[in-house]
C-alpha cells in the first residue's frame, strides 16, 4: 500500500492533470453544501416559526399539521432515498447539467426538517417575558420575533446548528448516486483508473477534515461575537 508513495501521489494528482478533477469536485461539493445550508436554515426557521405560532393560535392548526408531516417524512426516510426520488421522480425531466442543483435542493429540504426542530427549541428557550415586553411596546408579533426572539434564540442554538452544518456538508458525499461529480466521486473516478485507493481516499478525507475544522473555527468566532452581551 505504501510502496512508492511519491509515485502514487504523482499518478493520482498530476498524470493527466487529475488534480483539476479534485478541484472541480471540491467546488461542486461546496456549492451543493452552501445552497443546502442556506435553504435548510430558511425552511427550518419558517417551519419552526409556524409551529410556535400554531401553538398559540388555534386557527393555525392546519399549518402545524403540514409542518408535522414534513418533519416526520423527511426525518423518517434515508437522505439517499430522498435524493434518488428528487432526481429520478420529481425532477426526472431536468437536464443532467442541473443535477447538482437538484441535489442541493434535496439536501436543503432534508436539512430544513432538522433545523426546524433546532430553531423551535431555540425559540422555546427564550423567556416569554421577552415576547410580552416587545408586544407591550406596541411591536407586532413578527417584529418581536425578528428583532428580539430570533437573535437570542440563534445565539442559544449556534452549537447545535453548527453540528447540523457539519453533518450536512459531509452528507453531500453521496451525490455520486445521481451522477454528480463531487469531491468523493472525483476520488472514486481516479481510484478506478489508477487502481491505487490509498492516496485519493486519504487525500479527500483530509480535505473534508480541513473544511470541517474551518467551519468549526468560524462558528466559534461567531459564538464569541454573539456572547458580547453576556455578563463579563
Amino acid at each position, binding site marked *: 500500500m505504501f510502496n512508492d508513495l511519491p509515485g502514487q501521489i504523482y499518478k493520482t494528482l498530476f498524470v493527466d492533470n487529475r488534480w483539476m478533477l479534485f478541484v472541480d469536485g471540491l467546488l461542486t461539493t461546496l456549492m451543493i453544501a452552501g445552497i443546502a445550508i442556506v435553504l435548510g436554515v430558511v425552511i427550518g426557521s419558517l417551519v419552526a416559526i409556524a409551529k410556535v405560532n400554531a401553538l398559540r393560535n388555534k386557527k393555525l392548526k392546519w399549518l402545524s399539521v403540514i409542518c408535522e408531516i414534513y418533519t416526520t417524512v423527511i426525518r423518517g426516510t434515508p437522505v439517499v432515498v430522498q435524493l434518488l426520488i428528487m432526481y429520478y421522480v420529481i425532477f426526472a425531466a431536468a437536464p443532467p447539467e442541473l443535477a447538482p442543483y437538484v441535489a442541493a435542493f434535496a439536501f436543503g429540504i432534508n436539512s430544513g426538517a432538522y433545523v426546524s426542530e433546532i430553531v423551535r427549541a431555540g425559540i422555546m428557550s427564550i423567556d416569554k417575558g421577552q415576547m410580552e*415586553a*416587545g408586544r407591550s*411596546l406596541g411591536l407586532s408579533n413578527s417584529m418581536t420575533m425578528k*428583532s428580539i426572539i430570533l437573535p437570542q434564540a440563534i445565539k442559544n442554538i449556534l452549537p447545535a446548528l453548527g453540528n447540523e452544518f457539519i453533518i450536512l456538508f459531509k452528507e453531500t458525499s453521496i451525490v455520486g448516486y445521481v451522477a454528480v461529480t463531487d469531491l468523493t466521486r472525483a476520488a472514486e473516478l481516479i481510484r478506478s483508473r489508477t487502481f491505487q485507493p490509498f492516496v485519493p481516499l486519504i487525500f479527500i478525507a483530509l480535505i473534508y477534515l480541513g473544511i470541517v475544522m474551518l467551519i468549526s473555527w468560524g462558528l466559534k468566532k461567531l459564538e464569541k461575537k454573539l456572547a458580547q452581551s453576556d455578563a*463579563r
Partner: protein
Amino acid sequence: MENLIQTKQLYKQFGDVMVLNGISETIAKGEKVVVVGPSGSGKSTFLRCLNLLEMPTSGEIWFEGNLLTGASEHQVDKLRTKMGMVFQQFNLFPHMTVRKNITLAPTKLGLMTDQEADAKAEELLTRISLLDKIDAYPSQLSGGQKQRVAIVRALAMSPDVMLFDEPTSALDPEMVGEVLDFMHTLADEGMTMVVVTHEMGFAKEVATRCMFMDEGRILEQSPPADFFGNPRNARLQDFLSKVLY
C-alpha cells in the same frame, strides 16, 4: 375627569379557576391607582388584561374611547404604544445595549428617526443618572438600574398610562428605593399609573386610590387615608394586619 381606561364585567378563567370575577372599573386620567391583595388574588391578571397581554374570557376593555377587546391585532398594537408596561422581571432585551433597548420600538414603529430616538434615550437616561450606561448591556447593570431602564424604555413611547406589575418584587431590598423614588417622580409629574405592588408605603404616599383585590373581585377601594386608616372589609383588615408591622 376624563376616563382613560374602563373595564366592563371582566372575567378571566384559567382552566377551572376563575381568576377575575366580573370587574367593572374606571380609571381616569391623572389617577394613580395602587392595587394590592394576597398572591393569587388576580391583581396581576387584571393589570395584564388592561393592555391585552392576557385576553379576558369575557367582558370589555375600553382605552381612550376605543374598544380593545374585539379590536384587530393591528389596532391593539397601535393602542399598546400608549400604554407603557413595567414587569417584575424587568424583561430588558439582553442582546441589546441600553440605548437599543430604549430606541428599538420608537424607531421600528416609525414614530421617531434614529437621531430623535437617540436624543430621547439620552434625555431619559440623564433623568435617571444612567447616561454613562447607554452603551452597556443589561447584564452589566444592577437590578435597580435594570428596572429604571425598563421604566425609561416604556416612557420613550410617551405613553398616556403606565402599568406596573410588581416592579420592585424581584429587587434586592437596597435597590427598591431608587425604583420607587423614580415612580414617585413620575406620579408627581401627572402620569396616570396603575401599580400592582406589595409596597404599602408607596401606596400610602403616592396613590390617589387604593384597591384591594381577593378571589378575582375588588372588595374595597378608597383613598389611602381611609384604606389604611379605616378599612371596612374584614379580609382587607386581615390582609393589612399581616403586611403592616
